[in-house]
Structure formats: C-alpha cells, structure tokens
C-alpha cells in the first residue's frame, strides 16, 4: 500500500513538473537581472519597466484588448442566443452547426477565413481578426449558456407566464437573470480564448494589426528575451484571473456537466 502511494506521488510529481516547469521558468526568468535565460543572477523589475516603453508592444497589447473585448462581447450575445436555442430545440443539426468551429483545427479555420476575406476583398486588420475570433468564440459561450439553461427548472418559465408575464417580460425578468452566471462565464472564456489566440490571428491579421501573441512570436524569432518572459507572465496572470473568475461563476461547465 505504502509502496503504491509512493509510486503515485512520484508519477504525479513528474507529470505536474512536466506541465508547469516551463511556465515557472518563464515567470522566474522574467525577474532575472540578466539578458540570458541561463542562470539566476538577481531579482529585478526592470524588464517590466522596459515593456512600458516598448511602443510596438503597447500597440499590440492595446490591439489584443480591443479585439478580445469586442469579439467576446459580440460572441456573448450571439452565443447566448445559440445556447438558449440549443437547449430548447432538440434538433441535432443546430448543435453541430454551433459547436463544430470548436472542434475544427485552428489552422483550418485560419486558412478558410483568410480565403473568405480575400474573396470578398476585405482588408485584413482589426476587423478581420475580430470576425475570426467571434466565429470560434460563439461555440464556447453557447456551451456555457446551454449548460446553465439545462440546469434550470423549466417550470420557472411556465410559472412566470402563468403569473402574467409576456414572453419578453419572462425572458427579461426570469430567464436572463438566471442565465447570467453562464453568460458571464462564457464571456470570460471567450475573452481569454481571443486574447491568447495565435494561429487563427496569424492568418487573419494584416499589416499594423499585430496582437500580443503575434508580437511575442516575432520577438522570439530573434531570441527569447527577458522582455518576452515579462509580457508572457503578464498574459498568464490575466488569463489565470479571468478563468478563475469564470469557473467560480459557473462551476458546472468546468466539471463537464
């Protein structure tokens, strides 16, 4: 028994090391007072300071925030409607249509969206990235809203109608308030997915519309500088906060219910 436990502990530790060591290294070296990611020299905030003066980086960060906010916003509205429809109508095709962009390989989504934008003669830029992000975010919001919706007692809607609420009042006063946690969780997920996305953004971005992940990639092509570590750490922190908030709001979807 003890031996079994020990083995379990060792294997678990190894797995978690494998998962988290790279991330820990990025965070640690973002505070390292050396240009090389080789040995620990001393603690410093200076790479974070340098970030603030890197105009390209700031523009990219700004782009990322705008794109993530707008796409998460639009995807939340559309995804909420899709999620409600999915839980109410039993048509399998609808599930398939809404959710398949989630399962599609990013590279395929990227290429196909690029082809579409070229076909309709659209200039690649913030707008094309937003459209692309909205496309793949809708499914996630819809999933989150659907999970919330299916845990809702259908008698509540009937009770509201029975007590004199029109379909619209019923949606506004009963359904929507009860769906809020699911909608918010979906919105936050959409936000992190958008801000982190590289592949699809890579295909749909134009000149001067670089986002944070694209900017990091172009910097890494030269060398993994401590500055890259610093911006990665910040991105990680943002994602972590948003995802934690989302999972607090709607535990069900993160438990795969």
């Amino acid at each position, binding site marked *: 028994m003890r031996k079994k436990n020990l083995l379990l502990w060792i294997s678990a530790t190894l797995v978690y090391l494998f998962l988290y060591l790279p991330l820990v290294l990025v965070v640690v070296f973002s505070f390292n007072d050396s240009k090389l990611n080789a040995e620990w020299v001393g603690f410093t905030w200076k790479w974070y300071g340098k970030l603030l003066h890197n105009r390209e980086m700031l523009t990219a960060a700004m782009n990322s925030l705008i794109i993530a906010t707008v796409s998460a916003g639009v995807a939340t509205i559309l995804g909420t409607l899709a999620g409600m429809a999915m839980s109410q109508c039993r048509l399998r095709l609808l599930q398939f249509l809404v959710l398949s962009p989630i399962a599609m390989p990013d590279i395929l989504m990227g290429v196909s969206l690029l082809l579409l934008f070229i076909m309709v003669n659209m200039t690649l830029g913030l707008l094309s990235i937003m459209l692309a992000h909205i496309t793949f975010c809708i499914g996630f919001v819809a999933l989150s809203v659907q999970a919330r919706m299916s845990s809702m007692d259908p008698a509540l809607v009937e*009770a509201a109608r*029975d*007590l004199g*609420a029109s379909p619209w009042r019923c949606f506004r006063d009963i359904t929507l308030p009860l769906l809020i946690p699911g909608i918010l969780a979906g919105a936050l997920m959409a936000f992190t997915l958008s801000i982190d996305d590289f592949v699809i953004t890579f295909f749909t971005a134009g000149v001067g519309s670089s986002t944070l992940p694209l900017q990091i990639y172009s910097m890494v092509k030269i060398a993994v500088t401590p500055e890259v570590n610093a911006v990665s750490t910040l991105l990680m922190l943002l994602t972590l906060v948003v995802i934690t908030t989302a999972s607090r709001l709607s535990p069900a979807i993160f438990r795969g219910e």
Partner: protein
Amino acid sequence: MVLFYAVMEITALLEIVDVSRHFDDFVALDKVSLRIEAGEFFTLLGPSGCGKTTLLRLLAGFDQPDGGDILLEGKSIISSPPEQRPLHTIFQNYALFPHMTVAENIAFPLRMAGITKKDIQFRVAEALENVRLPDKVRHYPDALSGGQKQRIAIARALVNRPRLLLLDEPLSALDAKLREQMQIELINLQKDIGITFVYVTHDQGEALALSHRIAVMDQGRIVQVDVPERLYGFPNSRFVADFIGKCNLLEGYVHEQQGDSVTVELDGLGMVHVCRSETKCVAGSRCALTLRPEKIRIAANVSPTGDESHFSGSVHDMLYLGDVTVYIVALSNGLLLEALLANSSSGRTNFFEVGDFVEVAWSCDAGHLVLE
C-alpha cells in the same frame, strides 16, 4: 324560463368540451368533457400517465389541445396565451423564482399586472400575513422549508385573485405529517377565499379528503365523476373500485334481478343476495361484487343474521397496522378476501393467528355491483 336556463348555463365556471390531446401515437386525452362549478374543490385523480397533468397543462395554456374547446365563464380560452388566462398554477416543485426574495416572488404577478408600487407593498404584506409567514419577506426561497415554500407559492398564486387555481400534485414533495397539515390548510383556505380549485393528484386518500367532487381518469378518459362518498361507495367500474381505497372484487354472474334486489352467483362460492342495488343489470351478464374490507365481519363464529351472506375460511396472512389489523382470509375456493378489525378494545389486539379457522359475513347492502 329561457332567461333562467341562460343563467344556469353561465354558472359552470369552467367547461371542458371534447378535449383531445395526442403525442405521436399516444393518446393522452381522448374527448374529455367536464363541467366545474364556481367555488368547487374539484380533483382530477388517476394513476400516472392517465392524462390528468396533460389536462391541467391545457387549462393553464402551456399546451394546446388537438381538438375540443375549453370555456371559462362561457368564453373560449384556447387561443389565449397563459399570461392572459385569469387562472394560476401551483407547481409540484413550487417553481419559486430563486433569484427573487419571498416578497419579490409574491409581487411578481402584481408587477406584471401593472399595479402601483405602493399597492404592491401593501398587498404583499397582506398575502404574507395570510400564510402566516410575515417575517420571511427578505428571505430567498432556498432558505425556506418545504412547507414554507408551499405556502409562499400559494400566496403568490392567490395575490391577484385569479378566477381559478390549478394545483399539480402540490403536496407530493412533503413528508406524511406535513402533508396532512397542509391538506387541512388547503381545505380551509379554499373555503375562506371561495376560489375554485382544480387539483391534480394520484393519491386517492388525498382526493377523498380534500375534494367536493372527483373525476377519476384512466388512459386519457374520465371514468367517473362524483362526490367522494359516492365514488367510494358506488364505483361504476372495477377500475374505480380498485383504485379508490381497498376493495375486494368477487367475480360472478347476475342470476336474477327484481327491482333493486339482485341474486348473484359468485364464481366458486355460490349464490349471494344483494339488496338496495343501484346497478341496472341483466340476468346472465358478468359482474363483480365490490366489498370494502371494513364492511366484512370476521369472527370465529359469525352467527349471521337473515340478510347476511357468510362463508368460512382460514386466516392466510395478517398485517398489524396499529389502529386496525388487516386479515387476509382464504375462502374454501381459494379466493383471498381482505377484512379489517379495528383494534379499539384495550388489551389484546390479535384476535386471530395465521391458520386460524374463521368465518366472514357481510350484509346484503354492503356490496356494490359493477358491470365494467
């Protein structure tokens, strides 16, 4: 005279005319017709799947019938959406809005009706007073017990005085003690406010205790509509006799009928005499004698009077239930008959043991004949 009849027509508060509802191949309701009077406590009773809940949902407007009409005070309500029908529903699981406080829940129907804030406040307070929960105003439904939720649901449904209250097995989620207490509260409430109740349940005891009239349903049809005493004493079919209370069904043939006096040949038992029969039967037709356990006398030696039928047998099984003991008596032909003895005398409660030789007897008007 014409005017008088016109008035008579209007007194039926709710009229259900030939209402049918099919779900694919399944017939949930088959041409159901009912008249429910104003002020009645009317119960739809039947086993699960008999169509009682389907009918209630049609009345509430959550579902549409495939045929027939529903009239409220003489006007068809079939095409009105639920929010425009002057009736409210009490749901099985109460359906209180979890994101609203008790006060907000009760205020909801008033708010939807466009009543001013000041009036709402006053009427919510009044409603809470009526259900004796004035201190729960700021609580959320999650913080209430089952019985309290029940009362809030009733307060919410009654606060804007509907013409009709539909109740869908409202007591099924409560434990036995609380259920009995709520039954008494429901009876008193209905009597006090005088609003017509249409109550759905599968619990025959509850139906007998609460209702003015009961409609027994089976497989989408109404089998019998009557007051509780008639339904229990004079069921019109084997189904109703068996479904309402406990009942012994003795199969046989009608041998002879003279007025309200019938001779029946029971299978394997022989002739019995039934007097004051209300059943119109033809000699030679199949029938069943329904006998309630409490109407059967059981003794070591029954010494029957002139108008009693009696048979001998032995105790096959017995169930001690506290207030009464149920004896299952095996008659000479193997038929099992259920009889009751009240344990009302002090001291010894077991009159017989399993295997004891006993006699049973019932008077000629104890049984009731059913043909269907």
